[in-house]
């Protein structure tokens, strides 16, 4: 046998995939499961483009071994929206022009969701530190921070 069989709940669906022991979850999600919304910017946990929730905790998928996903719940950017109904973060990123090239956007959305799950009403400073693991080279972060603030406010009202 050359592959490991892994069963996970990914974005709400039971998903089975094959992998090798020393492959990262990032590579498995992209290459085996086809979730290319999970981006690779560095492969060393320094950019956050591959952010996913693993059992509700924020992780860089490039720092996780794929077999660790066996029996785990995973959320990627592809699972953020509810059908064609965008998550408030997605909507606020769009309306607030919080993306330019868009390569970092999936990671920011997942990391911001992790933040708001734990802290529904974060301060600007809390948002900035919570998202410090996600690099963006286009925006200077200004509009990203504002979009998260807007989404938090909307979700508080809802």
């Amino acid at each position, binding site marked *: 046998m050359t592959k490991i069989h892994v069963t996970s709940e990914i974005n709400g669906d039971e998903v089975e995939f094959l992998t090798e022991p020393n492959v990262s979850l990032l590579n498995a999600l992209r290459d085996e499961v086809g979730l290319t919304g999970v981006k690779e910017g560095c492969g060393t946990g320094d950019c956050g483009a591959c952010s996913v929730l693993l059992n509700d905790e924020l992780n860089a998928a490039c720092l996780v*071994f794929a077999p660790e996903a066996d029996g785990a719940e995973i959320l990627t950017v592809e699972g953020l929206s509810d059908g064609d109904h965008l998550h408030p973060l997605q909507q606020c990123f769009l309306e607030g022009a919080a993306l330019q090239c868009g390569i970092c956007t999936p990671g920011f959305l997942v990391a911001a969701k992790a933040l708001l799950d734990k802290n529904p009403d974060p301060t600007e400073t809390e948002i900035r530190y919570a998202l410090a693991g996600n690099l963006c080279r286009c925006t200077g972060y200004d509009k990203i921070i504002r979009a998260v603030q807007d989404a938090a406010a909307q979700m508080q009202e809802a």
Partner: protein
Amino acid sequence: MGCWTVTRGLNTLKYFSPSTVEEAVEVLAAEPGAQVFAGATDVVPQIRSGKPEPESLVDLKKIDRLVSVADAGDKWVIGAAAPASHLTANADLVAEFPGMVEAAGLIGSDQVQSRSSLGGNLCNASPAADSVPGMVVNGARAVIAGSGGTRTVPVEDVPQGPGKTSLAPGEFVVEIEVDHRPANTGDAYLRLIPRTEMDIAVVGVGARVTLDDAGNCTSATIALGAVAPTVVRVPDAENALAGSAIDDTALDAVAAAASAACNPIDDKRGTIAYRQHVAGVLTRRAVAIAAERARNGGAS
């Protein structure tokens, strides 16, 4: 215990996820080329970058004892693989050891915080490991398991130099023990990084101070990170504090002693002169914070 074995050409790769310490000990005894991991924040990138691959990987996070954080009466017992995010979320632990927990909370981004652990940070044996000075000043001990049984050593005895530990083959750290702090005791950890996040410490300082009822220092411990191959205690600074009112004179002596205790290198992150100077600056600041916390009953 989860176990997978795959073959790749002539090589066999194995992946184990033991569920008890005993199982892990057995696996490691049987698999001399095994790499244990908790957060794997260093292991995954190393493998990807083409470093020689371990023949087997052993995930310690499925062992309850390694991921639990508990007040065991006379001491805290923190699983070696418990993610830092669980430490920073534990209000009681934060209240008692704000400095030590803050140090653990500085290891990498929120993404990394879900993975990084005291045991991993300790066994990675980086001189700049943020959590180690915080553990050292609080007298933390590492409980180590191996085929010869279990032994407990002060955490500062584990790292032996960059990337080197005192662990024997087949041994791993099970948990970190920290005795409850005495009354009127506070701790603090400060580090210098060029950015506000995501950097490796250029200098890290852990400090713990115990005061008497009059507010004078009865004992202090100071440990410096990133200024020598391993964490450095600063007895001269500790002695200067003992019996003092932690006034400017004492703090000047502390800063000078900390600078003098450094044995740093010039590297891409900082120079010798910079590290020496800033070790003094941060030690002074950390001691002041620890003393303030001690005055407030240890709270931050």
